[in-house]
């Protein structure tokens, strides 16, 4: 008990005396913890709104896509079917509004309410002759509202209303299965499978969309409610007719007659696609931030430890065991990590609803982000792992330090790199000094490189994302498949996520760069003072400190490029490589920013009074 009290007392006093360092440490870990909280909170976030929408719209358990209305009869009367609506004809069309165009599936509906899947009109009114209703997310992307006039295959219609449904996933995931299983309605003029929206209109209106230039490719939708919704998958798989295989007769392909099915749980999962991308950005983002946090905490802890070598010696001299010394350092940092985890969880939980809003596609409030005990445990675990990974080695080193050496504050001898010293002898003074500084503390140089590698990787992910989006838009445009001018809500959300994560990465990396430079400045103060006593100029010494940081950062900046590309490749299939100048710009930019961030601490370090430093070192 007495020992625990001593550890507590020493830790608290130390934290009070070094509040700024403690705050920086908490900030670094909190950022990673908050990001992970947001990522984990998205699990199941859309399930609640989907359920609310299904109830509000009498949503179907199974949706059947037929190639002929005659196929409906056997399904409507199949065992287990409680009620149904349809079949409704579906026509493929190109919708145009205010210069923007997109592919659309126009579902022909009765003006009377349907028993199953009666879309919930959130603005305006239900379909009427000459008046169409747009799915809400699609309407938002198109920028249209009630009363606007849109064109469908060149014909003019008024937007009578905006509605939501639980029978189809919202834009841009309407055809959510896969490209191959999207038929029979996949050949949408003006749309690919990600850029198609849903429209309801009168049956006559849907059938009237055909023209000579644009012959109607119709299919039919049949909505089924089952007595046991849990059996939806079994119901669908029993009745699914697989598409015909490749024909043995060249040039001939047997027509696919269907039917195909989608089930309520598949639709719910497709709804979750709205936040899935964001999740797939946040989770690796949290990992990157955690890596930077480890680098930051390692530098901070290492710096504090070297500052307190004498304290370690005194503790040991008065009888502290090596274990107790290690416990003190560990306890201090683990308590800070726990505090950071709590702050991170709170910040993540507060921010998550802003990010997890499932958009306009569903009714009801988005599910409160599911901050479960499991999420909290994972986040606390991450924070503790970060602190432990960064603290364990220095704590053990403190415990093992010779008491006499520690009490005399004998600095850890720098490494000698003979080859580097030899090479540097022929270089200009700033490079000579910088190179030798790097060689003195290779572990710190490695941490600095890791910090920059992670940051550049984050930047490369952002660049890759934009390159991929640009390339997909360009490909779609070249094939006239683009949803011309429409914003993709998922892309917009991904951009927001990436921006948030990138800003956090940059801020942490900047802090880390400053910590590292300062640690180098403190560590090199004797060498700096000595060089100045021997006639080196302040700018030469200051430049040397900057060169040391840039040299450490260089391999990290270069390694960050393949790291970022590999990470993005894992996150996104069919990713496009960013142009080489973008990547070169990322590397050069990171190095320039690194140099700029280190100029002030380096100049301060170079200007330290020579006599004071040399006398302090001699004492």
């Amino acid at each position, binding site marked *: 008990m007495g020992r625990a009290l001593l550890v507590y007392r020493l830790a608290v006093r130390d934290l009070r005396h070094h509040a700024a360092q403690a705050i920086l440490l908490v900030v670094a870990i909190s950022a990673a913890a908050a990001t992970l909280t947001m990522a984990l909170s998205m699990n199941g976030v859309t399930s609640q709104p989907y359920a609310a929408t299904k109830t509000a719209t009498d949503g179907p358990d199974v949706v059947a896509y037929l190639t002929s209305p005659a196929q409906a009869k056997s399904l409507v009367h199949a065992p287990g079917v409680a009620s149904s609506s349809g079949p409704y004809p579906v026509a493929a069309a190109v919708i145009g509004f205010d210069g923007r165009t997109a592919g659309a599936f126009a579902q022909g509906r009765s003006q009377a309410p349907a028993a199953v899947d009666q879309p919930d009109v959130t603005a305006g009114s239900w379909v009427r002759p000459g008046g169409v209703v747009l799915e809400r997310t699609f309407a938002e992307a198109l920028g249209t509202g009630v009363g606007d006039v849109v064109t469908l295959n060149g014909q003019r219609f008024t937007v009578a209303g905006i509605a939501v449904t639980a029978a189809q996933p919202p834009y841009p995931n309407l055809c959510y299965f896969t490209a191959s299983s999207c038929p029979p309605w996949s050949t949408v003029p003006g749309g690919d499978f990600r850029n198609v929206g849903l429209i309801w209109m009168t049956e006559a209106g849907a059938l009237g969309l055909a023209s000579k230039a644009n012959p109607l490719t119709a299919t039919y939708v049949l909505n089924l409610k089952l007595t046991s919704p849990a059996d939806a998958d079994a119901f669908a798989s029993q009745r699914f007719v697989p598409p015909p295989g490749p024909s043995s007769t060249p040039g001939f392909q047997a027509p696919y007659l269907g039917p195909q099915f989608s089930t309520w749980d598949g639709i719910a999962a497709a709804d979750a696609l709205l936040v899935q991308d964001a999740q797939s950005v946040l989770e690796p983002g949290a990992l990157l931030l955690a890596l930077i946090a480890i680098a930051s905490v390692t530098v901070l802890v290492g710096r504090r430890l070297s500052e307190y070598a004498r304290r370690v010696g005194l503790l040991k001299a008065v009888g502290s065991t090596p274990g107790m010394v290690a416990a003190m350092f560990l306890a201090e940092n683990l308590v800070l990590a726990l505090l950071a985890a709590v702050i991170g969880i709170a910040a993540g939980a507060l921010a998550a609803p802003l990010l997890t809003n499932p958009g306009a596609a569903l009714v009801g409030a988005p599910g409160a982000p599911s901050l479960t005990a499991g999420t909290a445990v994972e986040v606390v675990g991450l924070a503790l792992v970060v602190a432990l990974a960064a603290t364990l080695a220095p704590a053990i080193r403190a415990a093992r330090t010779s008491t006499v050496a520690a009490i005399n504050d004998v600095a850890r*001898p*720098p*490494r*000698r*790199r003979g080859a580097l*010293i*030899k090479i540097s*002898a*022929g270089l200009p*003074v700033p490079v*000579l000094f910088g190179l*030798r500084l790097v*060689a*003195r503390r290779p572990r710190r140089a490695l941490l600095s490189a890791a910090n920059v590698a992670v940051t550049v990787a984050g930047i490369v992910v952002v660049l890759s994302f934009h390159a991929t989006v640009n390339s997909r838009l360009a490909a779609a445009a070249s094939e006239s498949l683009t949803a011309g001018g429409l914003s993709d809500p998922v892309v917009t959300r991904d951009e927001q996520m990436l921006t948030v994560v990138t800003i956090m990465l940059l801020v942490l990396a900047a802090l880390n760069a400053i910590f590292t430079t300062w640690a180098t400045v403190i560590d090199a103060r*004797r*060498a700096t003072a*000595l*060089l*100045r*006593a*021997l*006639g*080196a*100029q*302040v*700018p*030469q010494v200051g430049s040397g400190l900057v060169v040391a940081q840039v040299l450490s950062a260089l391999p990290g900046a270069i390694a960050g490029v393949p790291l970022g590309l590999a990470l993005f490749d894992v996150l996104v299939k069919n990713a496009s490589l960013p142009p080489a100048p973008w990547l070169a710009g990322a590397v050069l930019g990171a190095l320039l920013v690194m140099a700029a961030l280190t100029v002030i601490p380096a100049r301060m370090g170079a200007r330290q*009074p*020579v*006599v004071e430093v*040399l*006398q302090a*070192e*001699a004492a």
Partner: protein
Amino acid sequence: MSGSGTALLRTRGLRKDYGKGEGLVRAVDEVDMDVAPGETLAVMGPSGCGKSTLLHLLGGLDRPSAGELWLNDTRTDQLSERALAGLRRREIGFVFQAFHLMDELTARENVELPALLAGSTARQARRRALALLDRVGLTDRADHLPSALSGGQRQRVAIARALVNDPVVVLADEPTGNLDSAATLDVLRLFEHLHASGLTLVIVTHDERVAATADRLVSMRDGALVDETRLTGGGMRSVADLLRLEES
């Protein structure tokens, strides 16, 4: 207090204050001093009397609060930091009590360092360093790290480093303060050679044996010069006496 008529180092009304108001400490107080070319000057006095501060001012490591400071015909108290650095590089060599060698550099690399700072090529610096290490009797220790050298050997490396750019004056702050008797004699022998070669030396010391080797001895108290003694027959003869004394 003056030495010869054409002083290499000259101070007039040199003052260095630390702190303000009631906490003001005058470390160097109105010092007038001339050091002639080729002269060896010893500065003695009790701890805290301002000896080291005076040496730091002479070497441009610190700036005076008032007064004038001249090296040859250059008024150094008004020089920019950059010009002072150049002066330290070319004209002045420092020898510290605590040696202040770079732990990760070998003896040769430590000696090379000021030469590289002064713009010598790596080859020139190496050649010069090896020659100086030979001169201080450490040829066989050229590739040893400071941790593998004795205190006397480290100080000899530091002296070689101070000489690498052919300075006009060497300023030594308690150069034997951390050395045993044998090592002290080694260092004194070196200073004797430097003196004989015409180099100007200013040595701050507590050690009367070291002071006895000088041409002139000044004493300091409370920052001011209070006494001056011209030591007849200083230099080589005194060291020889010391050597005989140690050997007997």
